[in-house]
């Protein structure tokens, strides 16, 4: 199944396109041309894979969760370990690929949006490695809640611009990055962090992230002795999901499940589920592309909410919106509470700390494994590691010693 081969280039069924201000047209066209050329050049993919092997530690392994499989007593649970990627998440794959492209294009500066900060850290890392100038746009709210990532971006040499408009989160950072790009495209490449935005970004980011699925397919076949029956991935913009799903799209026996942020429930503004049952999301056009957005009747974007900053976004990959529509990918939502529970289970039974984003995929995988047979196999994509989430997790779990530690570090004397 080639999801990139529709009659209308850049479209996936009714979704996709490039809804951009005319000032960006030439840049986007050039980018598309460079990308097409790179894709057609076998040495580019080789260089890409080499870079990821030498610098990022790929391939990442697949781990069999024997303990949890046994405890749950259903399907055999396997996990693709993007948490072991350099910078701690799948985000590195995409930025390294775009970095190679930027070098080919001869540009010297990169910009990016970031929500959780993972993509910002990854981009700052790539920029340091490639010697590019780097500016990261990040909603002011996120700058505050994800300060550790901001600190590292700055240490890596990037300028972090807090975006103080709108909801001051990811979507506003994307808008501001697009604004920067409209000035700076001569020297600057916009490193989109997920499979969203105007064409060619959804296709390009999918292309780079496909390495996840390409690695996972033979590995799980070897380990489990068969194809997985189901593959789970969390879905923010959709890049880690597209990454792993691409390994299995052609195999009809493999069910693909995207798990969105159920937040505190399906009420308006309480979640970030755009494709799961019960969502009010509808087709719209914003931030350069057409997809399912969480928006009101008049097309104004709604607030979103999730314990996982990386899933807290109004839109979703147009490719996934299409795959949902044709029934190839099933979408579910996991609530914040379920996510913290799953996180605890995985830590205590397997010694693995998934990112809060990734824990969404675990929620659904663990839930469904229970009703499956022992010879069935599921694969969960662990998009990243959870160390970065200590502030959020400690708060969610309510650890008094952590609070005390923060008070001490902040120089607060005890009462």
């Amino acid at each position, binding site marked *: 199944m080639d999801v990139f081969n529709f009659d209308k280039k850049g479209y996936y069924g009714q979704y996709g*396109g*490039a809804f951009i*201000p005319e*000032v960006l*047209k030439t840049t986007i066209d050039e980018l598309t041309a460079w990308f097409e050329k790179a894709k057609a050049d076998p040495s580019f993919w080789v260089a890409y894979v080499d870079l990821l092997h030498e610098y990022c530690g790929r391939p990442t392994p697949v781990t069999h969760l024997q303990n949890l499989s046994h405890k749950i007593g259903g399907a055999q649970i396997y996990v693709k370990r993007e948490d072991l990627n350099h910078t701690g998440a799948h985000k590195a794959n995409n930025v390294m690929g775009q970095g190679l492209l930027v070098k080919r294009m001869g540009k010297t500066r990169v910009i990016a949006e970031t929500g959780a900060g993972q993509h910002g850290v990854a981009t700052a890392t790539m920029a340091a490695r490639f010697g590019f100038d780097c500016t990261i746009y990040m909603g002011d709210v996120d700058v505050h809640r994800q300060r550790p990532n901001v600190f590292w971006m700055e240490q890596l040499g990037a300028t972090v611009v807090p975006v103080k408009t709108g909801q001051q989160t990811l979507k506003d950072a994307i*808008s501001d990055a697009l*604004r920067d790009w409209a*000035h700076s*495209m001569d020297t600057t490449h916009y490193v989109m962090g997920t499979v969203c935005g105007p064409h060619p970004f959804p296709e390009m980011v999918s292309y780079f992230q496909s390495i996840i699925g390409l690695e996972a397919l033979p590995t799980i076949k070897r380990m489990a002795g068969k194809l997985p029956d189901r593959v789970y991935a969390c879905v923010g913009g959709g890049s880690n999901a597209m990454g792993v799903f691409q390994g299995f799209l052609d195999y009809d026996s493999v069910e693909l499940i995207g798990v969105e942020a159920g937040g505190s429930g399906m009420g308006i503004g309480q979640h970030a589920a755009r494709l799961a049952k019960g969502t009010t999301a509808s087709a*719209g056009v914003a931030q350069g592309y057409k997809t399912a957005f969480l928006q009101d009747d008049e097309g104004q974007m709604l607030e979103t909410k999730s314990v996982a900053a990386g899933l807290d976004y109004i839109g979703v990959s147009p490719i996934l919106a299409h795959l949902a529509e044709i029934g190839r990918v099933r979408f579910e939502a996991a609530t914040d509470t379920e996510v913290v529970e799953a996180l605890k289970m995985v830590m205590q039974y397997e010694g693995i700390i998934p990112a809060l984003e990734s824990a969404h995929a675990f929620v659904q995988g663990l839930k469904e494994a229970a009703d499956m047979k022992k010879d069935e196999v599921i694969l969960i994509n662990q998009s990243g590691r959870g160390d970065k989430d200590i502030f959020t997790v400690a708060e969610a779990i309510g650890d008094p010693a952590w609070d005390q530690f923060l008070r001490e570090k902040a120089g607060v004397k005890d009462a």
Partner: protein
Amino acid sequence: MLEKFVRERVNTKGIAVMGHIVCGYPSFEANMEILEEMDKAGVDLVEMQFPFSEPIADGPLFLTANQASLDKGTKIADCFNIMKEASKRFSFKTLMMGYYNTVFKAGEVNFCERLKASGACGLIVPDLPLEEDAGLVQAAEVNNLSLIRLVAPTNTGERIQQILEHASGFVYAVARKGVTGSKTKFAEGMEEYFQTIKKYASVPVAVGFGISQRADLDYLKEQGRADIAVMGTAILKTYLESGREGLASFFKNIMG
């Protein structure tokens, strides 16, 4: 229609002027004050921006304006209302300016019908490129509206030609890189840009680049670089800083 109206104005005045408001910002009352001053000053066209939550083509001032207006509860119906009133009361022509999602969600046909009913003569949708606008063009034509195409200095000659082949009413030539309100001086190569547009344009040419003084207007008039001078940021800024009176004297200085 729109093109004819613009040509007449240019013939009379040398150059026409297009103003801009964000509906509901800082309030609908303020909008009316600004519109009244524009009318008095002899502004020929006004783009009335329907606020959107993700205005990616707008700079900080209009971005804030869009969001403040929405925060106050501005709905599309309110925008149509003020448009209708403005179209009736004033001698300038009105155009809807806004993002494609506003049109898309309402439905292209429905939206154009309501626009027509509100007295508008066109729409400007900065995030809708040629490749995506077939449906809206049709809905606009049926309703006697011009879908105003934009060209940018980053466009290739072929692209400008391609856009101009489809132009209706007038063409909006962005004369800076970046978003609204950015203070780019005319860079080198800008003359060539104007000449390319002139070469292919069968419709009048509107130019916006942060016009704020008479010299800017004169520059555009010279050698017929443009037919319409677009003023946006300067108007809103002046009104916010020095109110209605300030705006009156701003217009006097620049157009009087």
